């Protein structure tokens, strides 16, 4: 009667922390549409890098990207991306509020964001619509880029 619970107690205490298997980054999920047909249209070539971080490319002439994932800068309220679609370059600027979000005990914290309508230069991009303004770790589309 005595030993069973004692063994159980020390078994519980001895448990090591678990591993994190969840998505830990909240990224702006962006899909591409043709402005003429209104249908999804993946660019033949896509390059993206942060406006103030041009040494590290997020996408480098990637082909047939259906959903581009854009990380926002949690320490700022605004950040820009240089987007090159089929050889033509545009800049998209996001303005947002960020707030911490606990993912789980194992994974710790990330940042969630609430974005406003993004600004863009109109070289190849015709329109950007926000489909969901809360950027989380869930696989939900946030913006549609028409070009």
């Amino acid at each position, binding site marked *: 009667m005595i030993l069973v619970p004692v063994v159980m107690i020390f078994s*519980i205490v001895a448990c090591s922390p678990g591993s994190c298997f969840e998505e830990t980054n909240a990224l702006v999920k962006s899909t591409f549409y043709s402005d003429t047909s209104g249908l999804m249209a993946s660019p033949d070539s896509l390059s993206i890098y*942060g406006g103030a971080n041009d040494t590290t490319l997020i996408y480098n002439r990637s082909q047939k990207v259906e959903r581009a994932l854009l990380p926002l800068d*949690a320490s700022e309220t605004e950040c820009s991306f240089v987007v090159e679609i089929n050889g033509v370059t545009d800049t998209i600027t996001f303005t947002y509020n960020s707030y*911490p979000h606990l993912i789980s005990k194992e994974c*710790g*914290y990330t940042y969630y964001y609430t974005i406003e309508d993004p600004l863009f230069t109109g070289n190849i991009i015709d329109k950007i619509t926000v489909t969901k303004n809360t950027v989380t770790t869930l696989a939900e589309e946030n913006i549609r880029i028409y070009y």
Partner: protein
Amino acid sequence: MLAPLSAQEAVEAPEATAATDSVDIQLKIRAGVEIAGPAIYLTDKNILNLEAYCSFDLNEVRSIYAGAGFTDYHYSQYNYSFSAKGSFLKAGMDFNLLRPEMAEGRYWAGLGLRYGISRFSYETASFSYENYWGSTTSSVPRQSAWGHFIEASGGFRAELFKNFSIGWMVSARKLIYSGADKHVSPIYFPGYGESGSSFSFAINYFLTWNIPYKKIRVQIKPEPVEEPGDEETEGNDDFSRNVGRQRIGS
């Protein structure tokens, strides 16, 4: 599970009367302290759990339960550091599933159902986050919250010495409401445990002081047992006896 009665226990056993048709049961008020929490704290300074309870026998089966406790919890890993501190109250009913002639007012093996409420504060002293733009470090300031949960327990308790019991309880808790900001909810809160899931489990080990306050007589009611060839044994009382119970007064 039950140890054989010692000589002292045999002398003090409730007297069976009327040819074992009834048994006297001593009803008690109990006050107990949980000892696993302080024992764990000796090996892990990150969690201190202090808990005590009182229970009041209504009869040989049911007892009213009330418990209270305090928890100071700390957790840290490579990317954040969390702490929570607060008190909790639990109230409910315990049910002794042992038959009275087996329990004898000294043994308890049964179930408990409780409602728990917790008042606590928690904070994340620091957390770090890293992505394409670099790493940032921030914190979540201390905030207070109420937590609510229900608890189902099962366990065993035995009176080792006169009016002194020892026993353990395994508990499953269902979170009703953590009372906190959904984005920076606590990973742990006092009374409930790890609040990342809607269920938590715990084991407690209690030392209990028993205060007898009333003696009742519980009848052990004979029940007929169906045997093959009932016709042949009809009228044979000894052959068809079995135990049952009915409380007949104080």
